[in-house]
């Protein structure tokens, strides 16, 4: 029997396949298609302190092998997430990683405080990289000092493991990764979406009402793999890799590059069973290759 279990930031995952924040709600929808306890874990939709309506529509644009989104963190606010979503999700045997987005250091701090000790929450994912909200969001993730400070302040408020979600929209992602590691991040997750734009030539307007959006999906995979590789050389904390995964082969690419676990975002839209197919695919492949423990793959790139 091949071992698929991994440990990231002190959380035990029965397999290294998570679903990425914002692409999987709080699990209810995909649970209509299959039992979500088969996943390693769920990174919940980005939550803010107050409820948010999100951006006007259109919020989606398809691009070659990719998708632009400008959801703008539509969510019911941290309190309803704690009261309604997390308790529902707890019934499943699946790690719950709560993704939070703040507009100020105080907001990050406050959310971390409220989530600390909430039963079922296994870790926080601190989103310092959302490109879709004005005045905040990505700004935290593009400057190493600011990024470090968010982590420092959150660290002081919770005993939960902290996973910091990094932005790819930077000159040197390893600088940010080192900064958040030094302030106590237990893991980093990457990549968030790459800032992009699409134009409807018929009406001469941006396709997205918000003008700019975040690019994800297979198109970004080479950039994501590169960044995981670079970050894995720069920090010691484990990495959750994501960006364009639609197959188990993609997942292996990320793991060889240095990721201890992977998350699937847009891949859910291409095929709702993607996470399950990745898990089964990994299992069969490891078996065929005679690899006893999936952890052997992590960072095993010969380069």
């Amino acid at each position: 029997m091949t071992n698929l279990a991994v440990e990231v930031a002190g959380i035990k995952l029965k397999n290294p396949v998570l679903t990425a924040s914002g692409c999987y709600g709080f699990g209810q929808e995909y649970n209509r298609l299959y039992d979500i306890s088969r996943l390693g874990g769920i990174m919940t939709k980005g939550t803010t302190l107050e409820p948010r309506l999100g951006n006007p529509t259109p919020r989606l644009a398809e691009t070659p092998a990719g998708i632009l989104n400008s959801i703008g963190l539509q969510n019911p606010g941290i309190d309803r997430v704690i009261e309604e979503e997390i308790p529902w999700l707890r019934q499943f045997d699946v790690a719950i990683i709560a993704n939070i987005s703040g507009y100020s250091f105080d907001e990050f701090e406050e959310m971390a405080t409220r989530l600390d000790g909430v039963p079922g929450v296994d870790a926080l994912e601190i989103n310092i990289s959302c490109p879709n909200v004005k005045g905040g969001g990505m700004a935290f993730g593009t400057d190493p000092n600011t990024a470090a400070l968010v982590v420092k302040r959150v660290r002081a408020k919770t005993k939960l493991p902290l996973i910091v979600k990094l932005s790819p929209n930077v000159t040197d992602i390893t600088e940010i990764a080192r900064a958040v590691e030094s302030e106590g991040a237990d893991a980093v997750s990457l990549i968030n979406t790459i800032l992009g734009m699409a134009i409807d030539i018929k009406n001469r307007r941006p396709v997205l009402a918000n003008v700019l959006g975040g690019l994800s999906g297979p198109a970004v995979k080479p950039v994501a793999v590169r960044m995981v590789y670079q970050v894995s050389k720069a920090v010691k904390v484990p990495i959750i890799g994501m960006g364009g995964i639609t197959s188990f082969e993609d997942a292996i690419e990320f793991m060889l590059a240095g990721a201890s676990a992977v998350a699937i975002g847009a891949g859910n839209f291409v095929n709702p069973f993607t996470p399950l197919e990745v898990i089964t695919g990994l299992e069969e492949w490891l078996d065929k290759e005679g690899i006893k423990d999936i952890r052997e793959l992590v960072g095993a790139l010969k380069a």
Partner: protein
Amino acid sequence: MVFSIKAIILENQKILPDFYRMVLAVPSIAREAEPGQFVMLKTSNTLDPLLKRPISIHRINKAEGTIALVYQVIGRGTNLLSQITQGELEVMGPLGNGFYWKKDYKKVAIVGGGCGIAPLPALAEELVKDGKEVYVLLGAQTREKLLCVADFQQLGCKVQVTTDDGSYGTKGFVTEILQEFILNTKIDQVYCCGPLPMTKGVIKLTKENLIPCQVSLEERMACGIGACLGCACKVRNEDGTITYKKVCHDGPVFTSSEVIIDD
């Protein structure tokens, strides 16, 4: 239940210059499908186009385990779809909330425009089965873009048609004949699916005349089942607050009183 499975293509043929009719053998989806619901279709076995395309269910045949779709070729996805003549197709569905009706409705009107007519025959069929008198008002730019007239006629509905250029039925907009029609006939419910200007017109008219109305909306979709929040539609809640609902999950059919359609 939602299914994501391979359906067998029984038919995929051009019915009008820009329109195709596709029949899929997919018993699980056919069994659960209701009028007004839709499916998401993969249009290519490559990663481009990446996303599935939402297409309404046009006819449901539970006995034979088939659903029919009618779609317009407008972009890359529908173009690729029209080129697949046989084999299997990945389909997810049935999705969303369909139209509803009550036992006591007597006369109902179905208003459809453009490719928004596509989902309405499935609705008409159920309404007829349920003993309603079904009036159908259709609008199209021109005769060559007019869908489903025969479907409605075969079901025994009373069909009126307008075309923008007068090439079929009355020349003009379907909202014009709707206006006349609701003055003369007591209608319990209006069902509407069509381009946004038409939908707005229908909402306005039904509101003025205090007729309950259900509208089917479109929005760009990624997941199709309510997880990504891409397909938001502004709604006015009962307490007056404004929030977003999901077209794919809470819709595509909404009551006209709740939706807020921006310009």
